[in-house]
């Protein structure tokens, strides 16, 4: 009987631990993007999507502000709060003032063929980000 009681206590502790870990994960999965300052002088000109393979091939931006050094990108699925991919560019990309810049993405930037909303973040070396919302395959009606 004593063994059974201690087993039940262990089970309760494990379940509480599990629920706490899940809550902790949700909190931290969301946190990195919550307080990141966004660039305001950048326009999104085009997002190239390979619809056959559901992959974001590239994003073209137009920088109206000071030159920016772009270091990497992240794709976040809004409905699931999950970062699908986070990559660092092999070489930093410079977005000059009043020019358009094409940022290649490719393979890992996979979109759910059944549909979802995403935030695509392009990170700068200043700790800011360019954020772009993508509704795939169709925008919200």
């Amino acid at each position: 009987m004593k063994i059974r009681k201690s087993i039940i206590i262990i089970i309760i502790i494990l379940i509480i631990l599990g629920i706490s870990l899940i809550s902790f994960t949700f909190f931290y999965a969301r946190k990195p993007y919550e307080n990141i300052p966004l660039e305001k002088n950048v326009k999104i000109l085009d997002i190239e999507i390979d619809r056959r393979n559901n992959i974001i091939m590239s994003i073209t931006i137009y920088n109206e502000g000071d030159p920016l050094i772009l270091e990497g990108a992240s794709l976040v699925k809004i409905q699931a709060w999950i970062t699908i991919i986070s990559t660092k560019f092999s070489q930093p990309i410079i977005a000059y003032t009043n020019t358009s810049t094409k940022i290649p993405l490719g393979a890992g930037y996979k979109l759910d063929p059944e549909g979802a909303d995403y935030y695509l973040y392009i990170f700068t070396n200043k700790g800011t980000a360019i954020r772009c919302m993508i509704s795939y395959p169709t925008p919200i009606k």
Partner: protein
Amino acid sequence: MIWTPLTAIMIILGFSGVVLMLYAGPKAYSIIKKISKASLEEKYELEKTFYLISTVIWVLFIVRIIASILFWATNESLIPLIPGAMCQFGVNQAGAPWSWIDNGVKLIVLLVYGNWLVLDLINRRVKGAPLMKSLSKLFLAFIPLIVIDVFLDLAFYFTVSPVVVPCCRVVFTAESPVPCPYCFIFHDAPLFIAVISGYGLSICFTIWGFVVKRYTSKYKEIEEVGTNVMRKLAILALGFAILGTVVLIPAIIQVMSPAVPVH
């Protein structure tokens, strides 16, 4: 109605549930009625009848438990067939309101039906079937749930149609305090299915253990077998709780690993 192999199986399981329930229900009722006034010989006959209907109830409950697992797989398979549906949220929208209530019912069926199955397992191991009357009463008490469970399945799968639905993106926006559970669990972090199943089974085994304990203190004839079953249930519950916790680690890594900002 959308006819697919899985929806057809769900319909068949629903109708077979009705047939089995209609067969076992009146027999269980007649056992309750007759047992208190039965002679030793009649009791033996009732015992034989009970073994027959308990086998039917085993089939019924196992069919319903299989249906409750298939329910999620069937809904997942319907996503591409419903315009606008991106996850099971959209499928549920297409089959509302039955689908939503069915989601809730499916979460408790294993816990409820499993209770009966565990008690019957003990009853079969003890001479004289001491739980015969209790199990018959318990089965009759579960009939409303079986009816609701079967009715919701039939109502849902007969009414769900390929209508254009607004999916979870309308409800779960960037500002939502919680993610869409269907997108999260079934599409992006499938390891959480194992985590939830592990913890869910652990909770079920623990509760069944408490129920067995209650019956063991009430019926002295089943004390020995009941204690043995309680021990086994506790070990299984612990095993599944450990399994859930162990799987939780790769599940968290799966969610967290790409979430590292690059700067």
